């Protein structure tokens, strides 16, 4: 029980992150991948990658604002699952949709700007996934953190990818874009400091308030 108490958050994260994949597999066996299965798989894996990427980006600001240290530990898990779905997304496009046909792929990837930035986002995520281990963290030292700031670039590329691929109504990708920009803004030094100061001030006030109430309770 103690183990579960300590581990419930990461366990929940694993389950949640695997749900979209489980749903795809379930739909596959129940003939529910729509009339255009390859496109459906492409969309679903892409959307899952985006959501997980946004969640991974949300960990640090959540800790800044609410002091949720446990959440920071989920960053790596969420990031790696985002990469898993990005890989499935990329392989579906290249392998299932275009059957590795070099001629068609040349047109599909390099002549379509949305595909090009999507491809760039995938290439940006690739070294981050590879260097996500403790060994690579040690080996890269200070540079590890620098390298992993590429996630911000990847997130922006993914948003552009989404904006450019929708037919006309860009409200949904823009909503994701707004969330990503907010999560990036919360990392700016001035904003972060202001938030920490605010949090500490509120904490002090709460403590003082508790102390006062406690005193008044005295006879």
């Amino acid at each position, binding site marked *: 029980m103690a183990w579960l108490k300590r581990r419930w958050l990461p366990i929940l994260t694993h389950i949640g992150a695997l749900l979209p994949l489980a749903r795809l597999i379930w739909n596959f066996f129940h003939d529910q991948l*729509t*009339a*255009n299965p*390859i*496109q459906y798989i492409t969309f679903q894996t892409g959307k899952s990658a985006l959501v997980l990427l946004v969640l991974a980006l949300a960990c640090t600001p959540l800790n800044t604002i609410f002091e949720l240290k446990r959440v920071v530990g989920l960053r790596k898990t969420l990031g790696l699952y985002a990469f898993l779905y990005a890989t499935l997304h990329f392989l579906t496009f290249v392998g299932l*949709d*275009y*059957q590795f*046909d070099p001629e*068609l792929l040349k*047109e*599909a990837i390099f*002549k*379509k*700007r*949305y595909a090009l930035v999507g491809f760039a986002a995938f290439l940006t995520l690739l070294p981050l996934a590879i260097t996500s281990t403790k060994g690579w963290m040690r080996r890269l030292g200070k540079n590890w953190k620098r390298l992993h700031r590429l996630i911000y670039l990847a997130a922006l590329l993914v948003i552009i990818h989404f904006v*450019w*691929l929708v*037919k*006309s*109504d860009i*409200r949904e990708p823009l909503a994701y874009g707004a969330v990503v920009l907010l999560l990036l803004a919360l990392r700016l030094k001035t904003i972060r400091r202001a938030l920490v100061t605010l949090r500490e001030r509120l904490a002090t006030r709460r403590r003082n308030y508790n102390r006062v109430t406690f005193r008044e309770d005295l006879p």
Partner: protein
Amino acid sequence: MLSAQPTGVRSGAAVQFNGGDMKKIPSSEITPESVYLSRRRFIGTAGVLAGSAFLPSGLWAADSYEELRKELTPLKAIMNYNNFYEFSTKKEDVAPLSQGFRTSPWSVKVGGHVGKPGTFDIDDIRKRFPQEERVYRLRCVESWSMVIPWMGFPLAALLKAVEPTPKAKYLRFETLQDSKQMPGQKSSWYSWPYVEGLRLDEAMNDLAILATGLYGNPLPPQNGAPIRLVVPWKYGFKSIKSIVKIDLVGSKPNSLWMQAAPNEYGFYANVNPAVDHPRWSQASERRIGEFFRRKTLPFNGYAEQVAQLYAGMDLRRDF
């Protein structure tokens, strides 16, 4: 409604199917897909005489037409994978959202530069213009395609009936606007109603039809009931659904998609593998139900019938 059991309808009897009066057929007699397909096989073996009633006159060599018939997209896919933004922008949501759609009474108002403007009741249209079957490829601008057995009649027949005047150069079609029935129209992102257009000579081409049915039955709501345009050499969005108004006009109509994204959707929108789209490959397509991509053909494979309409035009510019 098309999932009725194939009981009691034998393929032999079904040959007497009367396309001109589809509306009156009680649902118990609606042809299920399996029966429709077996009827086609029956016709194939019963000989040319029985089959010829269903074939459009002199357009295709019987061979290629029968070839295309073998590639028919399953009815289930045709009925559940729909681009019909009036109901939803999600293709899978159109079928459930459109089920209560009222298609009777329905009339189509034809006016503008015509000698005999008029309002045509859908039942009258079915009676007045002999319904015939047309098996066409449908190529969506989103890089997927289907093969659909439509029931309908040449648009030219309706045009001849209203007698266009010399001022008439283009056709402007309009879909019903009724956001109570079509919840997608509540979105102000698009400028409803849906509008599409054709040049008069395109509309007079025998390939251009007004369809009222598919797979031998009246059109399901999600496919544009009760009457829609089908122009098989153009991207699917040109084939406007649930038409209530057709005007003959002097200048090029501005379609909904031309307004939404003029750099992506041109007035002509002829299927053209040589004209790139910023998102979808127009060089290849996925036929629904197939795994490998197909090469997209100029004019969706109908170049022989329609290419002369665009002689001397730069179709890269006039895309």
